[in-house]
């Protein structure tokens, strides 16, 4: 208001009537502070358009080309997508990604909720416990993945040794190369690494539920389970939605766990879209096909992004 007042005073003074109407017109059209504002957002527009917008459009056009690294590309229409859909590997990757994401996100939600509820109690050393339980999440994923690769190691790995000694297994397990086990072994690491993020968000959500609601439900004679179902869960709905949406996007797009623990093997049984896109485009040198792999997963991704974005915008406006 203040600036507007000052500037319109200037605009109304006699010496600015030359060219005044036109500038006022622009001002009405583009907003009161358009000159300074466009100057200030210019650098971010450069990043958004040049480094995100343009590459995104280029990803689409690349997916319609046969483009080897350093070679001449030529337009092939939807051939890349057509051959992907006929490829058993694509369908296997699709199945793996779905399984990996649903299991990962589901288990992180459940385990994160259990630990949030435990830490929400008045425990001794709660702050320290929270900090400790948060460590896996703050360490670079590549480090997390290598620690587990060492734990899973066939011959010298500690997991096989301990389980064998405890008579839980009667022979050493090939955690990351047994077809039946590999995806589960990777999911375990994903859950181990990602649970802290869920736990912290659920804890924050739990703390925002007013104590009176629990007291009221107790007066009504609700059991612990009933008050969880009728007070805790409704109070956590928005946190639950945002966290699972964001985490679904992040989990399904994270290639480090698979890349480091199994490289997608054995025989692509743990291949997921991010690793397939990487192996096709960079070591395989087929940029066009790689872009098609990444984009073939995009319709699903786009709907998640739109949903999550809406919730985040709503949260910001509230």
């Amino acid at each position, binding site marked *: 208001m203040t600036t507007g007042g000052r500037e319109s005073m200037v605009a109304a003074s006699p010496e600015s009537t030359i060219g005044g109407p036109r500038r006022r017109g622009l001002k009405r059209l*583009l907003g009161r502070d358009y000159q300074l504002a466009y100057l200030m957002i210019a650098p971010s527009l450069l990043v958004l358009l040049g480094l995100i917008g343009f590459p995104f459009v280029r990803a689409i056009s690349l997916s319609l080309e046969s483009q080897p690294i350093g070679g001449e590309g030529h337009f092939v229409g939807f051939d890349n997508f057509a051959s992907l859909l006929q490829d058993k590997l694509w369908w296997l990757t699709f199945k793996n990604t779905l399984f990996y994401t649903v299991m990962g996100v589901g288990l992180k939600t459940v385990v994160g909720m259990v630990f949030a509820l435990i830490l929400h109690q008045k425990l001794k050393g709660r702050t320290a416990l929270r900090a400790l339980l948060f460590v896996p999440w703050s360490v670079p994923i590549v480090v997390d993945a290598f620690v587990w690769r*060492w734990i899973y190691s066939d011959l010298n790995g500690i997991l096989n040794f301990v389980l064998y000694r405890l008579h839980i297994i009667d022979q050493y397990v090939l955690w990351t190369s047994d077809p039946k086990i590999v995806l589960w072994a990777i999911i375990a690491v994903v859950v181990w690494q990602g649970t802290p993020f869920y736990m912290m968000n659920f804890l924050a959500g739990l703390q925002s539920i007013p104590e009176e609601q629990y007291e009221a439900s107790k007066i009504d004679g609700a059991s612990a389970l009933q008050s969880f179902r009728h007070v805790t869960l409704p109070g956590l709905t928005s946190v639950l939605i945002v966290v699972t949406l964001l985490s679904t996007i992040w989990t399904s797009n994270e290639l480090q766990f698979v890349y480091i623990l199994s490289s997608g093997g054995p025989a692509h049984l743990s291949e997921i879209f991010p690793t397939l896109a990487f192996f096709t485009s960079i070591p395989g040198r087929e940029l066009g096909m790689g872009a098609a792999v990444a984009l073939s997963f995009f319709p699903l991704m786009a709907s998640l992004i739109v949903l999550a974005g809406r919730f985040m915008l709503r949260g910001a406006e509230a």
Partner: protein
Amino acid sequence: MNGSKSIQRSRWHFFSRPVLAIGLLWTLFPFYWLASTALKPNDDMYRPEPLLVPQRLTLDHFQKVLFDSHFPEYFRNSTVIAISTTVLSLFVGILAAYAIVRLDFKGKNLLARVLIFSYLVPPVLLFIPLFELIYKFDMLNSLQGLTFAYLTFTVPFTTWLLMGYFRTVPVDLEEAAMVDGCNRVSALLHITLPLSAPAIVVTALFSFTLSWNEFLYALTFTSDAASKTVTVGLASTVAEDVFFWGVMMAASVLIAIPPVVLYLLGQRWVVSGLTAGAVKA
């Protein structure tokens, strides 16, 4: 009623203590194993019966990482990239966030929307065209190339977080300053920025750790020791040595220290930060 409440409570405690203990063991054992491997001599590491408690400790692996490997270069590269990404994205983010929150111009709601959606666009969709772009500008294996790539996630994130904080700075203060003859830019510099200092520090911590931990872009855009970052450097160590686990774990400890320290410092803000304020405590 009081009785049933305490029964419920004790039943819950009865259940929760062992679960918490298992959870702590599961969470922390890998880090114990990481540290003890880093400190164990090779002779004690590759034996049929691994030692749960190391009998002898050695700093050999750390010595190898620090004085007889490419890791010092990787550390330098990661530090340079993470700091330049942070500084650049703060500059870009502060200007854009201020304009969106305080100034009146056409398209600002659209810009806010585009920012949040681009924060959510996963790197897996962008790394191939970015590779092509960086290749054409002859910036593969360069720290600049990676810094540009990292701006794709730090700029939307930084701007979005700062928008949230700028909204909480009372607009009256700026208006008072402008009545006293300050212009917009000096109001931003002298009023809003100092008042948002804690937020800017936290945003910087985030942007530094996100860049430090990044893997896919670094894996795609760098291939020589002079430009690799710590994360990709670690992944490429595997091929170099048969008995590499000691060195790997020693390097892992060193790589993990900066982000862990930063997160412990900024823990209070981590939750609201990562969902970019979508989840309110």
